[in-house]
């Protein structure tokens, strides 16, 4: 049996997938909102408005590197795309497929032991946890705010949910730094669309829909046949 050669797509694939757009949008929302929160904290007269500041990165493999030279102590939020599962019960094989994906939003903070003028000292590991919890609190509240119910992507995202939160200390016992990390897994339900084929008209059929005087609906079609 002869095998026909494969047919190729007519158009260049030159768009981002929804998963990429969503990951980037999560980063954008956080980056914009932290600046907004600092402004609100300043307006509210908070003694340390920069506590509401954090740095946002996408897909960094080693975000702790930013703390190594000790010039930066601002917490870091790293947004990464973990993956997802396609839901065959939603969508169709032709045009649109539904996906339940997970975006990881990891908060990392450093803490440095400090002298306490009131007596004693403030341990660095405790400070790291507090710094991390403060920023992770902002992250969760921002992403789960009503404003962001669809991550401001109403045509792509149908739902988002907080799947899990995990706290850990990503450091070696020998490390001179005290780090704390809190991972927030954001579950997002969205659709991916695939390239379409422009149909070729095979036959034109004209149908007139009419109503008779007694209310009956009838159809009259004109078409050529052989």
């Amino acid at each position, binding site marked *: 049996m002869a095998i026909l050669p494969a047919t190729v797509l007519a158009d260049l694939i030159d768009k981002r997938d929804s998963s990429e757009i969503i990951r980037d949008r999560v980063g954008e929302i956080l980056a914009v909102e932290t600046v907004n929160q600092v402004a609100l904290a300043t307006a509210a007269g908070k003694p340390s408005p920069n506590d509401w500041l954090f740095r946002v990165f996408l897909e960094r493999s*080693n975000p*702790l590197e930013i703390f190594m030279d000790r010039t930066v102590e601002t917490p870091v939020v790293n947004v990464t795309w973990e993956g997802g599962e396609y839901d065959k019960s939603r969508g169709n094989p032709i045009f649109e497929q539904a996906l339940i994906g997970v975006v990881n939003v990891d908060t990392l903070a450093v803490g*440095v032991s400090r*002298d306490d003028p009131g*007596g004693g000292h403030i341990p660095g590991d405790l400070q790291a946890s507090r710094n991390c919890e403060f920023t992770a609190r902002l992250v969760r509240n921002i992403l789960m705010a009503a404003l962001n119910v669809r991550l401001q992507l109403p045509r792509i995202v149908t739902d988002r949910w907080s799947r899990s939160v995990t706290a850990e200390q*990503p450091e*070696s016992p020998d490390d*001179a730094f005290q780090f704390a990390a809190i991972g927030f897994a954001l579950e997002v339900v969205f659709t991916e669309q695939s390239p379409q084929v422009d149909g070729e008209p095979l036959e034109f059929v004209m149908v007139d829909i009419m109503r008779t005087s007694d209310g009956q609906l009838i159809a009259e079609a004109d078409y050529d046949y052989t």
Partner: protein
Amino acid sequence: MSLSAQARIDAAGILGNAAHFAETFVLTQPDGFESAEPLLGITGDIGISFDADNQPVTGRRVTLSTALGAIGAAGYTGLPESVPGSAGKPWLAAWGGSTYKVKSAAPDRTLDVHTMILEFYEP
């Protein structure tokens, strides 16, 4: 002289030789006592890389080693160790313009060497 005794003497000589690898540092015990003269020891500050849940993570390992006997001879009470509680001050070591808190300690009473793992500290 036994080899172990010779080893202790050699260790003290290496840790206390400012002409070679040793450098001066100021040790502060929790009650604030500091010796009249700085101590001598071998310091280290190196980059480290380790695996945290299959993610490569970088860090810094700062260490300080000094002769056990030199600490007591300088008038300090006890050995530098970790002070996890926040009510008291920690053991501190300072050199080169930086101050560190003793994060963990590993006294070697066989060779008379006290090694400390340090973390950054803001005095």
